[in-house]
C-alpha cells in the first residue's frame, strides 16, 4: 500500500459512491449501529422533520408510540391542529438541544414549572409551545394542567421507549433574560409580545450545542439505561435568522453545528447513532429536487427517499424485520355492551303488534 486511500471500498470515493450511481442509486449511506425493530417502542421528537419519521415508522408497522394521544374521535388533521399525533408527546417542535434538555428537566422536576405565560385577548399561550393550542388556552390553569399532562407523557416516553429519535433543527433561539427560560419561538411571532429588554437572542455555538445534546442524552439514559438514541438533522433551512447574517449562510452555519454535534455524539456514545437524512436531501447530488418551490419545504418524495434509505440500511445490516406491535390488529376500543341479536329481538318484540 502506497497510501491509505488505495484499496478502499467504492463507497469511499465520490465518483463510485455518488457521481456514478446518481441520486437514486446511492447505497451504503448508513451503517446502523443497532437494529430498529418493529417491536421496539419508538418515541420521536424534535424539529418539524421528525414528524415525517414518526409517521413513516408507524406506516411501516413499526412501534411508533404516541404517549399523549388525542381525545377520542379527534383524528387526522384536526388532531394535528392541536399538536396531537405529530410527535410522541405534545410539545410541538423542539428545535434546539437546549430546548430538549429544558423540557426533560421540567418534566422530571429538575427545573420548576416556569410560571411565565403569554396572554392575548383573554387567551393564554404556553411559551414552551405557543402554537400547540390554535386559539390559546382558556385560562392559565388550563395551560398549566395541559403542560403537566405533556410532562407526564415525556416521562412515560423517556422511561418506556426503546428508541428515542430526535431531529436537531436550529441553533438560534430566544430566552427570557431574567429567568433563563428558553422559548420555543421568538416572542411576538406566533404569540406573546417582544420586549427587547427581557428577550435575549442566542445562537448556540458548537460547544454549547454539543454540551446540551450530550446532557439531554445522558439525562434520558439515566432514566432509562437501555434507551437508544437516533439523531438526525433537519434538512429544512431557517425561515429567518436573527444573527445578522444572510439567512443562507446562517442556515449553513446552524446546520453545520448541528451535524457536527450529532456526529460527535454518535462517535462517542455506543447507544447513539446518526442517520443521514440531512445529507440525502441536501447533497448536491439531489440538485434540490426534494425541496418545494420555496426551496425550503421538503416534498413527500424526499421523505419517502429518506425513509427508503432508513429501512434499506436496517434490512441490509440486520435482515428482514419480524412483524411488530404496529402490525398487530389493534384491540377494539369499543366496549362490548349488547350484541346485535339482542337489538333485533328487542326491536321486533316491542313493535310486533
Amino acid at each position, binding site marked *: 500500500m502506497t497510501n491509505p486511500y488505495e484499496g478502499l471500498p467504492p463507497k469511499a470515493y465520490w465518483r463510485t459512491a455518488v457521481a456514478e450511481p446518481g441520486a437514486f442509486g446511492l447505497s451504503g449511506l448508513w451503517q446502523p449501529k443497532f437494529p430498529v425493530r418493529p417491536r421496539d417502542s419508538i418515541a420521536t421528537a424534535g424539529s418539524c422533520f421528525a414528524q415525517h419519521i414518526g409517521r413513516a415508522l408507524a406506516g411501516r408497522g413499526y412501534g411508533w408510540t404516541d404517549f399523549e394521544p388525542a*381525545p377520542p374521535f379527534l383524528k387526522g388533521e384536526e388532531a394535528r391542529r392541536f399538536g396531537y399525533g405529530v410527535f410522541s408527546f405534545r410539545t410541538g417542535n423542539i428545535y434546539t438541544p437546549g430546548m430538549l434538555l429544558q423540557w426533560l428537566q421540567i418534566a422530571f422536576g429538575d427545573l420548576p414549572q416556569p410560571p411565565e405565560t403569554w396572554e392575548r385577548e383573554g387567551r393564554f399561550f404556553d411559551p414552551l409551545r405557543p402554537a400547540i393550542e390554535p386559539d390559546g388556552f382558556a385560562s392559565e390553569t388550563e395551560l398549566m394542567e395541559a403542560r*403537566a399532562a405533556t410532562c407526564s407523557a415525556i416521562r412515560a416516553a423517556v422511561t418506556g421507549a426503546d428508541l428515542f429519535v430526535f431531529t436537531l433543527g436550529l441553533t438560534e433561539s430566544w430566552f427570557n433574560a431574567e429567568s433563563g427560560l428558553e422559548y420555543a419561538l421568538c416572542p411576538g411571532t406566533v404569540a406573546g409580545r417582544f420586549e427587547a429588554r427581557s428577550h435575549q437572542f442566542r445562537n448556540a455555538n458548537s460547544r454549547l450545542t454539543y454540551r446540551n445534546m450530550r446532557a439531554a442524552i445522558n439525562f434520558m439514559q439515566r432514566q432509562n439505561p437501555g434507551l437508544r438514541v437516533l439523531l438526525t438533522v433537519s434538512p429544512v433551512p431557517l425561515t429567518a435568522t436573527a444573527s445578522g447574517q444572510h439567512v443562507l449562510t446562517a442556515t449553513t452555519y446552524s446546520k453545520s453545528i448541528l451535524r457536527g454535534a450529532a456526529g460527535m455524539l454518535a462517535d462517542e456514545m455506543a447507544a447513539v447513532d446518526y442517520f443521514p437524512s440531512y445529507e440525502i436531501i441536501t447533497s448536491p447530488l439531489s440538485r434540490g429536487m426534494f425541496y418545494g418551490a420555496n426551496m425550503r419545504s421538503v416534498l413527500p418524495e424526499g421523505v419517502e427517499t429518506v425513509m427508503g434509505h432508513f429501512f434499506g440500511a436496517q434490512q441490509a445490516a440486520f435482515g428482514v424485520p419480524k412483524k411488530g406491535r404496529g402490525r398487530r390488529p389493534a384491540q377494539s376500543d369499543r*366496549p*362490548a*355492551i*349488547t350484541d346485535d341479536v339482542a337489538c333485533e329481538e*328487542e*326491536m321486533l318484540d316491542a*313493535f310486533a303488534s
Partner: protein
Amino acid sequence: MPSHPDLPSLCIVGDSQMAGLRRAVDAGLVSFPGRHVEFWGATGPQFRQIDMQGGVIRARGAARETVLKVNGQGREQLRAGDFDAFLFYGARLRVTEFFAPILHRWQEQPGFASRAALQAATRAFLRSTRAWRMAASLAEQGAELHFVPAPFPTAGVIDHAAPGGLLDLYPGAALAGAGERGRIWSLLREASAEAGVALVSQPEDTVIDGIFTDPRFAVEGAAEKRDAGHKSPEFAAQMLGQVAVPTLRRAA
C-alpha cells in the same frame, strides 16, 4: 307524506333503544294527548342501510321492512317538513364510547385535553354517527330536532371487567363523578346546539358507578339475555320527561 294535518306531530326515530319507549307508551307510562306521533326506525345494525339523499331519509333492504313494521303507517321516507318535530331516540349515538375514554383519562391526568380540544373531539364524535348527521341535516332544513342518545350500559348485567369490557378498557371511568359527566354532557349539548339539535342528557339519578345505568332500569330479562344496552319502559318514561318539545307543549 305529511302527517296528520290537524295535530302537532312528532316522529320518533331510532334503533332498538326505541323499544323501551314503545313499551312505555303501551303501558301508559308515556302519552301524547292531542298529538300525532309516529315511530320510525330499524335495529342498530340495519342503520347502515338507512341513508339520506337530497334531504330525504330512506331505508333500503332489510331495514326497509323493519321500518315499515315499526312505523305501521306505510311511511318509507322522512322529510324535514313531514313532522313538526323529530325525536331521535338511541339511534346509534353511543355516548358511552365518548364518555369512557375521557372519564378514564381524567382520573389519570385531569388536564389531558383543553376544552377547545374536547370541543373539537365532541364535534368529531357526533359527526361520526350517521343518525346524528341525518338529524343535523333535518335541523338545517328547519325541522325541530331533539336527540336522546343511547344510555350508559346497565351495571351488573354482564361482567364489564372481562377482557374487552368497559372496565377492562377504561377502569378509571368507574371513578367519575357527576361533575365530570356534567362537563361532557355540556360539551355534547353545546356541539349539538350549534347544529340546531337539542341533545338530552341521561338524568343523574339513573347513573351509578361513574358510567353505568342503575340496574333498576334494566330491560326485562337483561341478565338472561346478557343485555346491558337496552332499558326498561320506566327508564324511557324518565328520559322522555327530560325532552322539552315546544311543539308538544303547545298541544297539551
